[in-house]
């Protein structure tokens, strides 16, 4: 008897691991369905190419005017790579946090997700995976365009690939956790919070050394950049791809690769912990205030 009932058992025991895994797996699937929901795949491809390229083009024109066409200055690859990889920051931060708003307001499914035996933070992180994939597509195209048309001095033979992929991995996880932080806060905000992810991403664009070294900022604003893991992550990405660029700028030049990696890891862990604690807090508050299924028309 016990044997036969075990054989027909379809609801697997809900251990935390299997719960996390299925939350992540299905969220990834759903995220991809939403992300790739283009009536015309050809248009989707064109859009995915044109959007990052036009972003890069604006930057190149601006740089060209400011530096009077001097593309051999190390500032150019600094800006170009910083901008290219910052695409991940926007994609991950908005991707993860937007899931909260989208599910609550648009699809009206957040409450059903909530009462299901899944882990919501893992689910939200899973929703970011599709953004990572489409984001990667944009980053690769932007970098490729730089190498082919703008003499971006990236040498496939000399780049430090292990360092690059290690930094990329830590960075993407870190960005997803920042997205979770923003998503958690969105849980408590009801009115038109859709822009929150974008707003944070745009603000940090200035403070994380993406398009200019931190020294350019007034001294009292620099600490913002120094506590942001994104700053160290972008520096590591630049160093691993084009080693000598880094030496031209004093901001982080004093640190070795290992030191930078250590700082990135430490700050990422710190932000990760903050994200999870923030989620727990916001989750509890949202249930106290009845916000899980709240739509803006209330």
């Amino acid at each position: 008897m016990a044997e036969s009932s075990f054989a027909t058992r379809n609801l697997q025991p809900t251990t935390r691991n299997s719960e996390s895994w299925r939350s992540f797996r299905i969220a990834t699937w759903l995220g991809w369905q939403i992300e790739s929901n283009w009536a015309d795949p050809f248009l989707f491809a064109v859009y995915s190419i044109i959007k990052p390229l036009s972003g890069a083009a604006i930057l190149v024109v601006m740089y060209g005017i400011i530096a009077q066409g001097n593309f051999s200055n190390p500032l150019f690859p600094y800006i170009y790579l910083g901008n290219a990889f910052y695409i991940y920051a926007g994609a991950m931060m908005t991707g993860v946090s937007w899931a909260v708003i989208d599910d609550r307001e648009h699809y009206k499914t957040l409450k059903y997700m909530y009462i299901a035996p899944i882990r919501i933070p893992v689910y939200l992180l899973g929703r970011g995976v599709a953004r990572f994939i489409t984001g990667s597509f944009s980053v690769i195209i932007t970098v490729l365009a730089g190498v082919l048309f703008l003499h971006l001095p990236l040498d496939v033979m000399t780049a430090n690939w292990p360092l690059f992929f290690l930094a990329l991995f830590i960075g993407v996880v870190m960005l997803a956790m920042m997205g979770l932080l923003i998503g958690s806060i969105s849980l408590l905000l009801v009115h038109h919070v859709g822009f929150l992810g974008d707003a944070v991403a745009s603000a940090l664009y200035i403070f994380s050394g993406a398009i200019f070294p931190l020294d350019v900022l007034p001294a009292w604003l620099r600490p913002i950049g120094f506590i942001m893991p994104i700053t160290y992550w972008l520096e590591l990405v630049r160093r691993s791809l084009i080693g000598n660029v880094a030496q031209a700028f004093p901001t982080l030049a004093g640190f070795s690769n290992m030191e930078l990696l250590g700082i990135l890891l430490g700050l990422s862990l710190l932000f990760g912990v903050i994200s999870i604690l923030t989620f727990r807090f916001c989750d509890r508050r949202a249930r106290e205030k009845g916000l899980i299924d709240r739509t803006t028309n209330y």
Partner: protein
Amino acid sequence: MASLAIETENLGRIYKIRGNKKEKQIRKELVALQEVNLQIEQGELFGLLGPNGAGKTTLIKILVTLLAPTTGQARVAGFDVVDQPQLVRPRINMVSGGESSGYGLLTVRENLWMFAQFYGLSSKEANRRIEELLTMVGIADRMHTKSSDLSTGLRQKMNIVRGFLTDPEVLFLDEPTLGLDVGASRDVRRFILEWLDVPPLPGREGREPALSGAKGEGRRTLLLTTHYMVEADELCDRVAIINEGRVLACDTPSALKQRLQRDALFEIETSPLNGLSAEALVSLPEVRKATLSERDGGATLNLVLVEEAALAGVINVLSQKNVRILKLSKREPTLEDVFVDLVGRSMEEMEKVGASEQ
């Protein structure tokens, strides 16, 4: 005690409402639920009947772990909804009527499959159940339709299937027929009753019994809210009547109506009332309750009389006011009458009062 599917103890909920821009500092408190004590056995189809704003949704939201109660406690499937939500969630599911939820870009099957995955159902079993349940609600032919292409009614049916799909121990249906047309409402009611007769789906008997030793062990429990009294009467084993956050009575529909058995109930259709009020009628001897609903060119009176003889007095008053009687009939008591008996007003009147206070 251990056999109860749902148990609440002095459950209460207060919403804090921030005033509008003018009265920013004023923070109003709204008591949406107070001192709710319910005990629902396993296997019961339990109804919560009350007008809009009575607190039905608030109660369901607390029971499904979406909302924290302000006071009191609640246990669902044997676990505390505040302290053990992770143990409650695998055993329950919920459907809210009157909304179109779901991912429009996914097909009906994909939407349902996805939610089944969250509960750890295998794809094979999920697909089998999806087909079976969609057939039961009559939309199996729409399985591969994008859900955005469905009408509101069909979308609601899909949402209802989502709730039943995981074969929960305790299922919460919040106004499942809200916004549906007559035919679709009937389909849904029939589906609910049919489903209760389906033997437990595979997977259920293998599940750790959360509750044991009871007579109704392993049977499906369903809590349904509605503001249609017919629905509560037709479907439910027991009904709790709720108004302004309080449970006023809780019993089987026939026992509830029994209370009025000694009274005589009349429905009178008349010409316009010429200013006649319900109060004027109730002030007559042996008239217990009177409700009026006016429409173009006429009105309907519902009377609860202690004795049939009291009708003479009513007719007298009507003719004094020049109100003509178009139709007069004696009725069996309904749950609506029970509500009027308990509250003093009809559900419709309560909803009007609620709306004007806001």
